[in-house]
Structures are given as C-alpha cells and as structure tokens.
C-alpha cells in the first residue's frame, strides 16, 4: 500500500459543479437525501466532512467531523466498498445509530453509500438516503456515477 499523498494531484473540487451533480443524481434516482463527503485536506489522515448535500432537513451536517473508519463516510472511505442499508432499524441497534451522525441528523431510514475512487485512492463518498421508511429504489444496485461524477470510479 502506498501513502495518501497522491491525492493532491488534481484540483478536483474546482472542476466539477458538485452541487448540480448531487441534485441531479438525487432526483433522477428518486432519493430523499444526497450528500458528498470529502477529506478536508488532501491526505487520508485529515478529517472528513460532508461538503455538499441535497434534500437536507437542516445544516447539522456542517458540524459533523469524521475520520477514516468513523461514521458512514469514514467507513466507506476505509473499506472502499459500497455500503447498503435497506432498513436502518433492522441493521443498526439503537445503541449503534449514534455512530452514524448523518443518519440521526437527516433521519435516514435506508441508504446507499458509494465510494468515489480516483487515482487508486478513495477520494470521497456519495451518500443517497431515504426517510420515513421509504424503500430504496428498485434499481439501486445499478446506480451509476459514471455520467454525473464521471471523473471517479466506484472501484479501484
């Protein structure tokens, strides 16, 4: 494995209109909430924050600071794999829910979290979530980031 310092090679943040991409993917795929988490600085030990959201209930996401391995985004950053929770109340114990603050702040009941790979590193996480027990869209297995966030891949 190689260090995290390769992340800084592209000023990715400036080239893409992430907000527009997020709004588009949320409405097109039929989700209540969408969010994008990135590292604060261009290395994997820096804090992770939710930088863009769409369909949010409040601005609490701005306060949340995660680390690799912590929280929903931190876990996907660490594993580099898609994470699917079809029913929060079945998968997570009440005592575990607080480990995923975005689930609490946005009252999510189902979600898909997709790693955004770039240059052999997980650069960010795309989260798509449902509230009020709305089921995940049937086609959630086929959600593709290729057209809206095409600079990233879902796998290494």
């Amino acid at each position, binding site marked *: 494995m190689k*260090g995290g310092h390769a992340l800084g090679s592209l000023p990715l943040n400036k080239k893409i209109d992430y907000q527009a991409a997020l709004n588009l993917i949320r409405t097109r795929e039929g989700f209540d909430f969408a969010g994008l988490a990135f590292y604060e600085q261009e290395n994997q030990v*820096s804090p992770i924050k939710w930088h863009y959201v769409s369909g949010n209930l409040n601005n609490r996401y701005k306060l949340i600071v995660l680390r690799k*391995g912590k929280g929903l985004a931190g876990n996907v950053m660490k594993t580099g794999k898609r994470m699917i929770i079809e029913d929060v109340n079945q998968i997570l114990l009440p005592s575990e829910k*607080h480990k995923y603050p975005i689930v609490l702040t946005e009252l999510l009941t189902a979600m898909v979290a997709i790693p955004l790979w770039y240059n052999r590193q997980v650069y960010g996480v795309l989260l798509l979530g449902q509230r009020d027990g709305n089921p995940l869209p049937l086609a959630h297995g086929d959600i593709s980031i290729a057209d809206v966030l095409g600079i990233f891949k879902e796998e290494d």
Partner: protein
Amino acid sequence: MIVQVNQMEDMTELLLQYFNNTREKIVFVDNKGKVIAKNQAAKDIISNDEDYRDMTNVICNRCDGYTNEFDLQSCKNCFLEAEEVGNTSFQVFMKTNRGTIEPFTATYQTIDPVNDIKVFTLQNVSPQIERHDKMYQRKMMQKTISAQENERKRISRELHDSVVQEMLNIDVELRLLKYQQEIQDLVADSKHIEGLMSKLIDDIRNLSVELRPSSLDDLGLDAAFKTYFKQVESNYGMEIIYHSSLDAQRFDNEIETVVYRVVQEALFNAIKYANVDKVEIDLHYNRNRLIAEVVDRGTGFIKTDQPQGTGLGIYGMYERAELVNAEVNVDSQIGRGTIVTLEVPI
C-alpha cells in the same frame, strides 16, 4: 364452594372461629381510635400489656406510613382520616412487637356507621415484597452487567479497530521506509507516517477523554465540559449552547463526577431521541446549590411509557445523583421538549 348459612348462631360461630384462628390481624376501634377488640393474630402489632388509654389513636402509634401516590411510606392524606382510602385495600408499614417494621396489605372500613366503629385488618406481605425487590434488583443487575459488558466490548473494539489497525499501518510504512533510496520519497513517506501518527494520537486521546476526561480532575467542570461539548458538536452535528457562571470554581471530586456524568447522559439522550439541532446547557451556583440544566426543544416523551432504550440511562442519573444527595428532575412534554435539572447541595 358456597356454604349456605341458615341459622344466625352458625354464622356467629363461623365468624368467631375466623376471627380467632385467622392469621389476618383484625382490630376494632371506636370513634376515638381506641381498641375495643382485637384477635390473637393482631397481638404482634398491638400487645395487651401496653397502656393505650391516653393515646388518641392506637393504629397511628404503630403505623409507619402507608404507600400512596406521594411516597412509599407517607402520612399525607392519612387513611385514618381520609374516607376514600378505606374502601379498598392499601399497603401500610407497621411496627411489630419484635421491633421490626413490616409491610402489610390493609383495609380500614366503617362497619357500624351509627357508633362509628371501624375495623382495621392487616395481612403480612413481606415475602411478596421481598420477592418483588429481589426480582427488581436482579433485573437491574442484569442490565448493569450487560451495560458494563457492552462498554468493554466498545473499548475493546475501539482499541482493535482503530488503535491496533493504525499501529499496524505505521509498522508497515516504517518497514517500507528502509528500502527507499530517493531522498524525496523518503521525505514524502516520513510525512505520511507523521500524519498517521498524529491521527493515532488523536484517536487515543479521544478514547481517553470519552472514558474519563483528565481535565475534569485537573481543571474542573467548566473546562471538561467545554472540551466535551466541542467533541459532541463534531461527532454528532449538534450545536451546544453552553452557559456557565462557574469559571474555574472547584467542588468535591465526587460532585464534579456526578454533575459531569448526569449532564453527559441527559445530553446523549437529547442527541439520540429529541431530534433537535441544538441543546442548551446551563451551569450555575446559587445559594449553596450547584444547578445544571440540559434543555432541548425536541420531541419530548411520556415518562411512564416504556423507554425507547434500556431505561438504564435515566435510572443511572437518579442513582448517581443520590450518591451526593442531589436531585434530578426530568420534565418532558410531547412536542415541547425536555428539561433535565440536577440540583446538588454544596
């Protein structure tokens, strides 16, 4: 089985036998509260050799309070005076001649309204109460043990998943470092290791603060709370509006721990259940009382409902408060929010 009683003598005979042989204590009192008759069983409570002539009410003299909506042993709305209590059975604590205070199921009824004669009956329920207490104790103990085990699991997992993982990561990076020939790569990799190390230090520090903040012992409540609330903000996306008039004022170590833990528990409940984006926390010292308030304007709950969690949290708050003679008051209204107040006498 229904026994048909035709003759009045039979009835009197049966009642007399019942009166003499039952283990239920039966005491008849007149309108002045004087004993006019009692059965053998009642001698445990009211003995023959004592002189009751000057007493206003014999029952009152032996009574240690009854259980009502105010307390376990209360004299408020005394059953000897209140009419409505007498119509049903209730629980009362009586002094026995052995010097113990035991719980009884009692009735207190008027049997002769003209002469105002009342009958007071008692049945000992100590074994049932003891059993009930034991069951409750066992239930709480089980919950406590499982909470303790869960906490250990959490710490163990935290050590395994984050600390050990990160150290392994650093270990591998260091091994690779040996083989770097280019000075540039060497510098870059060292920087990376530096980053990993500082994350590891952060992780361990967070874990340590979570277990017990050293600032609580070294600097006091105010400093410990400030650090903790900052952590809560970033961990849970919750804004904490904190007011304190304590500054660096210090209290007994025991009191500081209780205040810290009770506030922590109340705040954590707000995070988990209240669905709010901010919580107000107020800490002040007033007329020899240290008062902490945790206020959220969230969903609220009904106190008598089955708790959403284990119920151990609130129980723990009361238990902790009792250690320092403090009082916890939980005031919650559906749709309005919850206020938890802790008052510690100093």
